[in-house]
């Protein structure tokens, strides 16, 4: 029978501990009294000794994870005992879980029964509903980065989580936040895929999942938009032949120092057109029309489990090359979860491009309080009639979704006409 190692109570006020570092590897021999791992408590970092001699059989809580005191963190086997190999426990545990709501099988050697009822690999950090002290700013930042505040150690007055704590947490976090965005926040610690015990829920069929913060935000805003904003849609087809040639020659001349995409050109053209059509660059808010001074074009960026719209500020005043590098940078930051608030606030219009998925055309939902969003399809060779002859041309369809409270069909049509004119005469955007 292996000996369980549990997260000890190392101070009076300690409620949970973080495994900082395992000082032994699985298979290593451990003597009683020998340091086994380093634990961060609410007070200090400490080495924890093995209470019995044996061989480290299993590590159940990985470095960096935080679990309540009493949670199993490792198993030691007695000298001579066969390695557990992973099967028995991995199966035993889910079975007892499946038998729920009965309490899990008695765990006789647990010194502290209560917390042990939680499956070891899914420590629920501070209890659900327990409020973490955090400043409003830290709370907002955590939400924006889809972080669980309970994971962050507060060092502000009274243990409050402040912006600095969130920043430090983000800086320490390895560069995989995009993937993390897909992890439901409540089950954050389930990121322990190596934990051999397996997640009770992992095998369950098509279980419902709580939404991430980001998904919740998307739900709220999209429902709000589609339910309260009267949308209408106008589509045009644009000849991208000239744009395509300009793009090719600019990129060839750049020799790899930058690369301009069709999307960059659409953003630039949209920005210049917005400058000419202030209504399209306006918000409807609280019964008033707000005409925006700046032209800040957002671009929708897909994330594994969400969507974010970083913003290119003052896009009308930026050169194509500046837009290309700005968009590349914010897309990269978006995908690695490193956007700063400044990167995604202040947008006055949005461009959403599904061209790379070979989409012909689509209609997008407006991102309130903005009053327009441009849905961009792929550039494709198509037969067109030119001077009475059928020719092949590179064409792209764009659809403008419009908030009918802010401007109307004719304005939308004129906007698209000008956008089309610019993209068909792209030299104007460069000059």
């Amino acid at each position, binding site marked *: 029978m292996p000996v369980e190692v549990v997260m000890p109570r190392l101070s009076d006020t300690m409620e949970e501990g973080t495994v900082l570092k395992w000082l032994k590897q699985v298979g290593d021999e451990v003597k009683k009294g020998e340091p086994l791992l380093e634990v961060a408590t609410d007070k200090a970092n400490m080495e924890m000794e093995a209470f019995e001699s044996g061989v480290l059989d299993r590590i159940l809580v990985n470095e960096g994870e935080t679990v309540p005191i009493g949670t199993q963190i490792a198993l030691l086997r007695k000298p001579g005992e066969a390695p557990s190999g992973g099967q028995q426990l991995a199966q035993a545990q889910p079975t007892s879980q499946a038998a729920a709501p009965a309490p899990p099988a008695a765990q006789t050697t647990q010194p502290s029964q209560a917390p042990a009822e939680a499956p070891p690999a899914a420590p629920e950090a501070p209890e659900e509903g327990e409020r973490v002290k955090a*400043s409003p*700013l830290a709370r*907002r930042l955590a939400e924006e980065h889809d972080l669980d505040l309970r994971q962050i150690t507060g060092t*502000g007055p009274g243990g409050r989580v*402040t*912006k*600095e704590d969130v920043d430090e947490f983000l800086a320490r976090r390895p560069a995989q936040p995009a993937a993390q965005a897909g992890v439901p926040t409540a089950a954050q610690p389930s990121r322990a895929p190596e934990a051999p015990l397996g997640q009770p829920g992992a095998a369950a069929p098509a279980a419902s999942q709580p939404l991430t913060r980001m998904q919740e935000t998307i739900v709220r805003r999209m429902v709000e938009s589609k339910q309260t904003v009267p949308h209408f849609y106008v589509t045009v087809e644009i000849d991208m032949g000239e744009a395509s040639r300009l793009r090719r020659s600019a990129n060839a001349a750049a020799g790899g120092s930058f690369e301009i995409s069709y999307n960059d050109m659409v953003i630039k053209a949209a920005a210049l057109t917005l400058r000419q059509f202030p209504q399209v660059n306006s918000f409807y808010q609280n019964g008033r029309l707000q005409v925006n001074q700046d032209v800040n074009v957002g671009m929708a960026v897909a994330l594994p489990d969400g969507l974010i719209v970083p913003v290119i500020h003052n896009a009308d005043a930026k050169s194509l090359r500046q837009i290309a590098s700005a968009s590349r940078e914010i897309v990269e930051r978006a995908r690695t979860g490193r956007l700063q608030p400044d990167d995604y606030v202040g947008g006055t219009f949005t461009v959403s491009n599904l061209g790379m998925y070979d989409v012909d055309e689509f209609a997008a939902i407006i991102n309130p309080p903005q009053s327009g969003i441009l849905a961009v399809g792929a550039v494709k060779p198509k037969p067109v009639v030119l001077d009475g002859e059928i020719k092949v041309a590179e064409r792209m369809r764009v659809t403008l979704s419009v908030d009918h409270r802010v401007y109307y069909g004719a304005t939308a049509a004129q906007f698209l006409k000008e956008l089309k004119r610019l993209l068909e005469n792209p030299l104007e955007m460069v000059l």
Partner: protein
Amino acid sequence: MAVITYREALNQALREEMERDERVFLLGEDIGLYEGAYKVTAGLLAQFGDKRVKDTPIAEEVIIGAAAGAALTGLRPVAELMTVNFALVAIDQIVNNAAKMHFMFGGHATVPLVVRMPAGGGHQLGAQHSQMLDVYFAYVPGLLVATPSTPADAKGLLKSAIRDENPVIFLENEALYNTRGEVPEGEHLIPLGRAEVKRQGSDVTIVSHSRAVLWALEAANTLAKEGIEAEVVDLRTLRPLDMEPVLESVRKTYHAVVVEEGWPQYGVSAEVAARISRDAFDYLDAPVARVGGAEVPMPYAKVLERAAMASPRAIVDAVKSLRQRTGS
């Protein structure tokens, strides 16, 4: 640009406005022959004569009542009260008459009145003569309240106050009369209701008005030596209250300390803190801190008086308490 005192800047403003508009006249105790208790009206009797610079009896209610009446008839009186403490005798005229008439006569009457008076303490003048009382007036719709902190603001705000159609309570500060600063000559107007950033900073926003701006700037210099860059916003007028520069600053620094010379309970800092909490909530990394005078009638004894007043030191401490971190 000429460097002159706050006192001279006020004098310049009065003189220029009297030269510009003959409807402007002054009244108050000892402002003529004696040239004012704080010498703000120096030389004006000699230049403009006793029809436009009127010495009055020691009767504040009469001064304000007469001034409000003159304003109603189309003149543009600038009344001086020796200090804000004596305005309490005239508060009925200010609050119930001057502030209300425009509204109670359906907009047909205007009261373009300015009441100038120094406020503040710190000169061992005792509990009755050391008060700020700025909120007494800032509380009342119908009044405008200006509280300049620099000579340039004193001139620019006073000229605007005299030209305004509303009754304006113009609070000077005894401790500021001798402070010096650059003041534009001639036409220099600062609109009522425009706060100003007096010092740029990125780490904390210190909001203040009147004399407390000087304390805030001194605190900012001390903090800068410790690597904390404070932004100092001067409200300049309490009504209208211009919050936009304050909010803009807090959205940048995430921390705010609101300082006032008067008592903080129900004070200017209470109003400003509430607005910050409402309008910049998601940008706050700590509760809004407030610094003000101790909640006691001002003691006379010098050490106690000093202890009862806000100070640069208290501001520095407040900033640090916001940014303090427990060991991590």
